[in-house]
């Protein structure tokens, strides 16, 4: 069985804003304003990622915060688990 990865939920969209990322969930609809600046590209979750995968070049201090944020995105339904190919 393939390991679980994560990907943007098909009912959700995300785009870059000045403050960071704006997530949209059409099922609510709901919005999520994430002050991520430019550290997380909006297309990062367009493909399936490992749960612990982060963009390259992040400082160690920011990795934990970003990892926690990604967990929250999963819990809130903006991301969903998908098998890793």
């Amino acid at each position: 069985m393939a390991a679980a990865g994560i990907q943007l939920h098909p009912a959700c969209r995300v785009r870059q804003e000045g403050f960071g990322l704006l997530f949209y969930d059409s099922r609510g609809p709901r919005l999520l304003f994430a002050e991520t600046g430019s550290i997380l590209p909006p297309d990062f979750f367009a493909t399936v990622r490992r749960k612990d995968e982060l963009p390259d070049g992040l400082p160690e201090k920011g990795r934990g915060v970003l990892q926690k944020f990604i967990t929250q995105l999963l819990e809130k339904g903006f991301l969903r688990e998908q098998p890793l190919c």
Partner: protein
Amino acid sequence: MSNRFVEKGLRSPVNLTWEVTFACNLRCRHCLSASAEPAPDELTTAEALDLVEQLHADGVFQVNFGGGEPFIRPDFEEILDACHARGIMTCISTNGTLLDTARVERLARTRLVAIQVSLDGARKETCDAIRGDGVFDKAVKAIKLLAASSIPTSINTVLTTQNADEIPAMYELAQDLGVSLRVSRFRPSGRGADNWEELRPNPAQLLAFSDWLANSGDVRTGDSFFSLTNQERQGLGLNLCGAAKLTCCVGPTGNMHPCAFLQSERFKAGSLRDSTFQEIWDDSEIYASFRSLRIHSCEDCQRFDQCHGGCPAVAYHLKNDIEGGDPECLERCVTSIADEKKTAVA
């Protein structure tokens, strides 16, 4: 509560209302745009498809189509397909009379469309008095077709004095049909302005509806930017007018306005025949004025955090004062009823 990210301005709207035509096969008495015949110079198919391309490039998440009756446009499904091919989600507000099995099957294939069918009473007599003879039966037939498909479907009801007592029954009807209920506010624009005094809910009805809504968690309301339940609005901190901040309106001829209820020349933000969508969103003085709009006269009200002064469109249509606060807000309903009682006692 406001939202500081929204206050600073987004690079483009989250969603927008696109009234693709003024043509309509019905003559509903509350129609916000007085739809009947198509506008003389509505966007061509090529112009409409170019707009879709712009919306995609600008990052707009969702387009809410209305009119007029959108399905009257022969190229409407082509416009929808263009949206869906670019991942833009769509919601269609329709009277349901032009939906058939084949069309519903085509629409259901995309998985990116939701549909609202207008129905203005739980009883045929109530609905048809507003929307026209035979419309209730046609709309219910369309809702049944949609409910049997995978398309997320809702009944959209405009609250009027005639149907205010039937809203709980509307909710039951929606449940029986397997769809959700969305209740929109009646605003005095278009034919709604002509029939305002006859159709407007009275203060007691508005208060009763508000109480009922507070206990009906899954009923959505037609807010200025999109449909949210009361709880969702509070949780997001987006309980403010979203015009020119989260949403905007594109009219049939490509004119852009803050919202569908302010489609007059006075509130024209620009024309897509003269400027790009992004240029108008970024540079329009009208949009700038809405982004900085503060209803100072309401700031001392105990409900200010709930409504931020209410709907500027209603304030404009009833008082010709966009900054004057919503004349039909719940607080004013309470005051109005209290004043009536005092007068009666005196």
